[in-house]
């Protein structure tokens, strides 16, 4: 009986999921979308007005809808905050003893590779309004690069070199900046995005986002390195 009822439930679940899929795919196929005029076309059209922003995607998330991006940043900060709240969790005894392998080759190649990765990340952040990239991707790439250093030189030493505590405060200062830009950008859009400083404001915002994401990425990675192999 036990086995039978389990398989019945599985069948029911499969039925439900198939119904869901059929509904959604049906909704997709039923609609003939030729001739629908979408907002995207208008964004493309308007992009001529802001010649210093040639990446239209950046225009959308960095200018027209920066308020959403503010919440995106808040979400990332909250994730980092959550990790920080739990970071005084005791690592289990087994995992503390697992020291990274200290080999000269790894260590040397890490210190050689890391600057390249970091420069690439910074480049992505700087050029977000011109080409693909963005502060977020740049920050994550530079932050993940540190993992190399952390694995080669030991997480604790890397953490000490980065002065984690003061960095975290910097992260929230950046959040303030983003808040300011979101508010001012909503109140005085043209002044902020074109007249006041030209590309300056945008690049500044992007670089600070990258900085913030970089710090956050490191904080998350540090937590997981400390609690390695616990799941």
């Amino acid at each position, binding site marked *: 009986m036990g086995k039978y009822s389990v398989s019945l439930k599985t069948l029911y679940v499969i039925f439900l999921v198939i119904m869901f899929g059929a509904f959604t795919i049906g909704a997709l196929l039923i609609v003939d979308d030729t001739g629908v005029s979408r907002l995207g076309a208008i964004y493309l059209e308007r992009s001529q007005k802001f010649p210093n922003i040639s990446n239209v995607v950046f225009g959308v998330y960095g200018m027209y809808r920066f308020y959403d991006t503010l919440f995106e940043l808040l979400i990332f900060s909250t994730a980092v905050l959550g990790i920080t709240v739990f970071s005084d969790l005791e690592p289990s005894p087994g995992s503390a003893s697992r020291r990274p392998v200290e080999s000269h080759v790894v260590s040397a190649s890490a210190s050689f590779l890391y600057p390249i990765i970091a420069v690439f990340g910074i480049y992505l952040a700087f050029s977000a309004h011109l080409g693909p990239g963005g502060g977020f991707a740049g920050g994550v790439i530079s932050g993940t690069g540190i993992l190399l250093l952390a694995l080669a030189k030991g997480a604790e030493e890397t953490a000490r070199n980065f002065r984690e505590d003061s960095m975290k405060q910097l992260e929230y200062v950046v959040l303030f900046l983003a808040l300011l830009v979101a508010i001012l950008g909503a109140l005085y859009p043209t002044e902020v995005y074109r007249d006041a400083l030209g590309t300056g404001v945008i690049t500044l915002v992007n670089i600070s986002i990258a900085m913030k994401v970089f710090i956050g990425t490191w904080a998350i990675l540090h937590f997981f390195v400390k609690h390695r*192999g616990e*799941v």
Partner: protein
Amino acid sequence: MLILFSLLLLGLSVAVLLQNRLLNAVILLGVFSLVSSVIYFWVGAPDVAVTEGAIGVAFVTFIYVLALSDQGKLHVIAEEVPPFLFQEKGELQGAELEILEGFAEKINLELEVEFVGHQELTSLIGGRRADVIAGAYFPGFLAQEEISHSKGYNQGQLAKIHRTPPGEGDIGILAETDLSEFTEISEEDLSRFSSVDEMVTAYNEGRIRGFISDSGRMSASLYRVNTTLRDKSEIVTLGELDYSFAVSSGEEELLDRLNDYLADLTRSGKIGELLSDHFR
């Protein structure tokens, strides 16, 4: 081309869910993100591709891999039963230790032994927190469908000790032990205990009229509690059993290699030497 890549993605998603080993699933998930990132490039969304590449492929995979337990170790969990596997002055000892050390060396893993209570064994192996159950394990020791056991390396008996005349009370037995292979004592007469030591104490206090255990555990316990059985007792052998190891039932590969290794030991005769060293 786009359709081809989407179908590849579909295949990958199925493959992720069919994996038994978590690490493989995680790495396949990384590949899944990579392919989706390629699709973004293809459909003219380089911004999304770069972000997905940075977060989905690199960052998320790193976090998962860091969080997953080290796969370079053979985690053995065991109940402490001298002389099978036990600790003395902080040093691991026992016949099983020698077998497992040899095995771990053969498959290039580092041996890690953790002693746990007998009731935690099932959940630890079921949650893949450990690879092998040791410590005088025998088939029927844990009533669990999700465990497969290896070949035996040593013979033992399942024995029942009871008072003569029997008198009142239940028969004590270890929790989770499945007796259906050996005897027909009905469930109502049994009361379950979490260790043999407790059963010996209960027996001496007269709370139970007898108890059932395997010979290895029984003598270890009598030795440890350092007591003799109080009343006049009779020992009945219920059946023969094979001491062996157990792995989680998904780990067929590990089980095969363990069986091969045990067969090698038997063939070369090493097992006999080893056992005579430890079981005098």
